[in-house]
Each structure stands twice: as C-alpha cells, then as structure tokens.
C-alpha cells in the first residue's frame, strides 16, 4: 500500500508539472493568466503550509471524503501561484469511478472555497481519484473561482428553519412520475444549508421518461424558493435509485460555485446535460 501511495504521489506531481503547459507564444494561440486572486487575510506563510494541509484534510474527512493526502505545489502560472492537490480513495475496483466519487470531488471544491474565505491563497485545485488498485480514475485541475462572499448571497442567520424548508421542497418539487422517498435539510458545520433529495423509480424506463424534466425543473424550483421564500439552499443533492436500492444517479449542485457533479448509470438518459452525440 505504501508503494501505491508513493507511485500515486509521483504521478500526481508529474501531472501537476505537465498539465499547465499554456505559455503564450506568437505562433500558438494559448492561454493567458487569470486576473488577481482572492481575499485578504492570512498568507500561506503566516498560516503554515502544514497547518493548512492538516486543516483541509480534517475538514474533508469530517464530511466523509476519503482523503489519501493533500499537497500544495507552487505554480507561477496560477494566480495566486499555488495549486492545492487532493488525492482521494475511491471504493471502485474497476476503471470507472464509484457513484459517490463525483460528490466527494464537489465537496473538495466547497471546502477549499470556504478556506479561501478564511484566507487561503490558492490559484487552482487538483483532484485525483484512485481506485482500490491505486490506479488513477480521474485527474482534474480547475482554477479557483472568484466568487462573491457566501454570506452575501445566502445570508445567515436564516429566516426559515430546516423543517420549513424541507416542507416547502416537498410541496413544490415536480416528480414526473417518480416517487419522493425523503428530503433532508440540514446545516453544515460552517452554516451552509444542504438539501438531500432521495427519489425512487421502479425501473430505468420510468427514470428516463422523467429525468430530463425533473433535473432542470428541480433547479428552477430550488432557485425560485431561494429567491421568493428565502429558503437559502446553497447546495442540493439528488439520489435516484431503484426499489432495491441500486443507484441510478448521484448528483450534487453547489449553487454558490455554479458547479454540478454527478455519476449516473450509462442507461440513464443523458439529454438533461450538454454532451456530444453518442453515435459520433
């Protein structure tokens, strides 16, 4: 296992070096650098790199994210010139991610965003997901986004309690022939309001008949409730499964970061999101 971690570290380090190759040259239309970074507050030197890594690791593990390790890499092409790289352990034994892996990746972005509000200076986030054999399933890098302060969009303290928000969602979510099993509304330890919606369908045909309309209508409903009823749901999750509990879709939408992450069975309709034609 130690050897796997060492190999994974080397792979991640190499990927970090080569994945940012976009120097602007006259003959090659490439990428410039993003404008200046985020926030005020403590610098990395003041906070201590080891403390930052330990803090991020602990916060993610408290949320159930299977962190293998975290590292911070200097990269002058980023602004600020730091890439925070996360390696996560998937439960998958194959070459496909497990259903919960995209959710974990999304949570990483959320936790880093919160850390930025506390003064973390980071120009980009790297997330690598390993299967049980230590093989890389997915390796991505994204610039951190310049977003308004969370508190200015999802004001705290909240006007409504979690139960009231859950009731409103229960009343308003369109189901398109699917069955609502449960809605859970809760607050993160940082105060972020989450809604988790569990949906059941008897089979894939029923799911495919309604999933496209359900996904875009659910987003509209939650955003309208946020606007009209002050429900302030910042992040919502949708879990779609069969009566046997077999997952068909695991989805999370962080409305603060404008980021959706999901896993779905291949047979589930894909027309609710942009994608290349399947036959090409």
């Amino acid at each position: 296992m130690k050897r796997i971690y060492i190999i994974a570290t080397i792979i991640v380090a190499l990927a970090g070096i080569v994945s940012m190759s976009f120097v602007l040259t006259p003959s090659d239309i490439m990428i410039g650098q993003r404008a200046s970074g985020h926030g005020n507050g403590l610098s990395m030197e003041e906070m201590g790199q080891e403390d930052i890594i330990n803090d991020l690791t602990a916060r993610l593990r408290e949320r159930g994210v299977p962190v293998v390790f975290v590292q911070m890499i200097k990269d002058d092409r980023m602004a600020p010139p730091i890439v925070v790289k996360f390696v996560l352990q998937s439960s998958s034994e194959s070459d496909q991610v497990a259903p919960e892996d995209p959710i974990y990746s999304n949570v990483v972005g959320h936790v880093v965003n919160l850390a930025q509000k506390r003064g973390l200076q980071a120009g980009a986030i790297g997330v690598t997901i390993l299967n049980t054999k230590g093989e890389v399933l997915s390796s991505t890098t994204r610039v951190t986004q310049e977003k308004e302060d969370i508190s200015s969009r999802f004001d705290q303290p909240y006007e409504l309690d979690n139960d009231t928000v859950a009731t409103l969602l229960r009343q308003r979510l369109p189901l398109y022939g699917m069955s609502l099993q449960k809605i859970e509304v809760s607050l993160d330890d940082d105060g972020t309001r989450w809604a988790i919606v569990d949906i059941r369908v008897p089979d894939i045909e029923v799911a495919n008949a309604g999933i496209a309309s359900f996904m875009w209508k659910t987003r509209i409903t939650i955003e309208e409730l946020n606007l009209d009823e002050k429900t302030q749901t910042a992040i919502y999750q949708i879990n779609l499964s069969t009566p046997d509990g077999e997952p068909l879709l695991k989805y999370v939408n962080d409305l603060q970061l404008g980021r959706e992450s999901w896993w779905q069975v291949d047979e589930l309709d894909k027309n609710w999101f942009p994608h290349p034609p399947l036959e090409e």
Partner: protein
Amino acid sequence: MKRVLTALFISVLAITMVRAHPAYADWWVGNSQTSAYGIMADISTPSSAPYLEESGESNWVSTDGPYWLQAGWRYYDGYSNARPYVEYNTAGDYDLTEYGTQSWDTSKNYMVYAGLVNDWGAAIDYVFKQGIDDIGDPPRGVIAYSEVHESSNNELDTWFEDVYWKSSGSTWYVFNQDNFRDDEPYAVQEVQYYEYRTYGP
C-alpha cells in the same frame, strides 16, 4: 388502393420521424473535424434571449466521446443570461461548472486543447479554466455544435466564427472539412467550414 397505400406510406413516415426524436431528446447542428489536438471558436449569443418552450440549449466546442471535455455557453429556462461553462466526463465522473454570464449579442472564445502528455485543457476567452487527464489520447474528433434540449420549439440563432482545429505541431488551422450536420427542424447556414450560423426551428 393507390390512395390507401399513399396514406399508409405517409403515416409510416410520420411515425418514423416522431420516433426519431422521443420526448426526451436533443438536437445537434454544426460542423466538426475528424482528427485534431484541439478546437476553438468564437461563439456568439443571439441579439436577445431565445424563446424556450422547455429546458434550453447549449453552444459549444468539444472533443468527441465517449469521454469528453467541452466549453461553451448555455441558456436554460429560468436563466436571465447565457452562462459560459466547462464540462467533462471521464470514467463516469461528470462535472459542469458555470463561469459568469455572457451578454446577448456578444461573442466569447471557447477552447479545448491537448497539452503535454495526454492532458487536455479548456479555456474561455483564452483564460485557462480546467484541465483533465484520462479522456483519451489525441488526436481526437473535435466538434463545434449547437445542442437543443427537450423541445424542438426552442429557438436557436448562434454564430460560430473563426473555428480552428489544432495540429500536433501546436499550429491552429481554420476548419477545412465539410462535416456539417443538420438536425431537423434545426439547420446550418454555411458561410465557410469555419464560419456558420445554427438556427431553427
């Protein structure tokens, strides 16, 4: 007898056309290049918000599938503006991130490109947004399409200009292949292989 056969033929044809696009459906129109190390295009928004009966539309550059990296703008029912985004799918890990807004009657550059050692990146207006491994080695088919979701009554009016593909030597060339795709009731107004308008219904 002739009238009966004609009516039967028309009925079968109509049923076939309806089944070609079931209720949950997408339509794709635009052009593509069969083998490249990247793609970029200036993609405009229409002069005002298009009518949407339901769901929405996206206008993008992308690698082909089954795993892909894509950048473009999308507009859905409930949105005030078009929203630039980057999306990927690798090993069943799907992700889509929106980056601000794109005003009506404006153009942005969207780019997906291969970097070193099988890495791919996406940029909006020449600013790097996301990079990804494991979507497949270059060269790949690259696509510059409009995609309409769910309803063929959704309006489409998008210009793709300066559509380039990238060679292995990191040189960018204008699209030089006729791989135009219509998808009724949406069509392509072809000016050049690298300049065209997608529109409909």
